[in-house]
């Protein structure tokens, strides 16, 4: 495919599949900048993080400066940059309805069992455990979102079963 995009010096981290997926969004918006969030999601889906080099390459694709993309990325606190998140990324809700039913205790319990702090990834890379704010599933409190799976009515036991199922029980 002929390309007018500037090439940067480092080895590219965005492969053609990612680039094509990002380009599919162009027709949906009147500006390229609006594709920033979709592009970040595409890269994060493949790489489980969005390293700086990817930011540079997204900026090229969207005809923006890397600073514009980085500015948006850093606002959300959602896209890891230093290292990939775990194979599974789970958010345990700490907002009010879950907290009233033991959500914070479940998160503390899970962190102790997985031997990590909230926001960290187990040494074997299986799981990143984070706190989340209200996951919009308060009727299932306390709950967590693990990848695409909403898990409700968490208990010490069920949360340990979850850790075991993703290979994150006391691994580090």
């Amino acid at each position: 495919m002929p390309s007018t995009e500037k090439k940067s010096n480092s080895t590219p981290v965005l492969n053609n599949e990612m680039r094509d997926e990002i380009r599919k969004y162009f027709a949906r918006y009147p500006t390229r900048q609006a594709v920033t969030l979709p592009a970040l999601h595409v890269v994060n889906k493949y790489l489980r993080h969005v390293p700086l080099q990817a930011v540079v390459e997204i900026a090229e694709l969207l005809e923006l400066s890397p600073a514009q993309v980085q500015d948006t990325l850093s606002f959300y606190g959602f896209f890891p940059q230093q290292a990939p998140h775990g194979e599974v990324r789970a958010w345990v809700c700490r907002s009010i309805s879950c907290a009233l039913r033991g959500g914070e205790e479940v998160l503390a319990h899970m962190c102790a069992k997985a031997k990590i702090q909230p926001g960290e990834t187990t040494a074997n890379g299986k799981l990143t455990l984070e706190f989340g704010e209200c996951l919009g599933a308060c009727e299932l409190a306390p709950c967590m979102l693990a990848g695409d799976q909403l898990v409700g009515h968490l208990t010490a036991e069920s949360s340990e079963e979850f850790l075991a199922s993703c290979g994150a029980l006391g691994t580090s």
Partner: protein
Amino acid sequence: MEIDLTNNTPVLLSRIGRPESHTLSDYRADGGYEGLARVLRDMKPEDLIQLIKDSSLRGRGGAGFPTGLKWSFLPKDHPGPIYFCLNADESEPGTFNNRILMEEDPHQVIEGLILACYATRSVTAYYYMRYEYPRAWERLLKALDECYSAGILGKSVLGSGFCLDIFPHRGAAAYICGEETGLIESLEGKRAWPRIKPPFPAVEGVFRKPTVVNNVETVACVKQIVDRGVDWFKSLGVPADPKNPRDPGSYGPKLYCLSGHVERPGCYEAPLGITVHQLVDHFGGGVWKNRHAKAAIPGGISMGLLKADEFDCPLDFAGPGRYGCLGLGTAAVVVMDETVSMVDFLHNSARFFAHESCGQCTPCREGTAWALRMLERIRAGRGRLKDLDLLLEIGDTIGIMPGTTICGLADGAAWPLKNAIRKFRSEFEEYMQRTNPSGYQQTDAVPALSSLSHGGH
């Protein structure tokens, strides 16, 4: 006064709980998209705006703004494009009704959205959904595919010549993207910093074009009004106060979210204006474990607090305000039983807002962070009576209402502070005396426990 619930039948939720409720064929078997076909055939966009005005529908996303009126603020004879943004960012703690609609009945939402786009002459709609709804997201994508294949979206909606695209857009876990101009900035690919208004989105919104932002439940109501008529809609709810010419009333059904310390948490449909008692007892099976209630959030955490002896508060647009709360908000009621410490509640609330403040306005950024620091110190047994006045000072001075911030997140942060401390002051004082017997009367400056890290946004 309590609303009679003997004949209460769900309408917005009527299809929920059936295994195939999310599919196009199931939706059509229930007459889905027939109302849309009728409108496209028989009504001009301005007729539909008039219908929604006549219904007195008010937005379900939190502010309760009259929907028909909002639509009529769009410039007349604009060369276009006009954009529609569906606000599915639902992140107000306690709230999950949009999720239920989008997971279980995505076509009801899409039909409502198409009708709203037709009324506002929008030819492109962005469906902005929070990231944490993967199941709703997957069902939306599938439902949109079904619509394009069936000619319900695209070049000519149901053969009418009306052209409409709906593009799904996924957020990235930030509460502020639910504020309508934060949503617009986020959609444009920028940080979600709410805009100073005016200009209002209807005049200059996304991509600097006229834009309408509506909530998911609001457009679902539009579809029901089209099907069932204005008289049906106005037969439910609470009429306008005749003594207040500016009160548009609270008509129609509402999806109430009930969570916390009740036996049966869930999303329940009832006419606007049921009381907290009715919601908790009739739908929720009462306070759990045979305990007593101590307090409840009336409509998402931003709305403040009701004491247990205020549960006769009607949950209509005007009710919670009469009890010192900010408003009806998202009608998400969170019940707290007698064992809950108000210090813990307020700490949880302050932590949420400090985490979610976008940082743009100094009073909000510093006020929410400072409140959290103080509450951490109070909780750790180093609280002073003076802190309550300092917390109230923050509560009374941050927000759109005191005129110090750009958006309403700060008002939402302020209300729990004001309500919790004013309604439960003696509990805070007793806590301080008990946990900090030697220092609770101290009034000179004290250091925070540790500096807060703002990891994330």
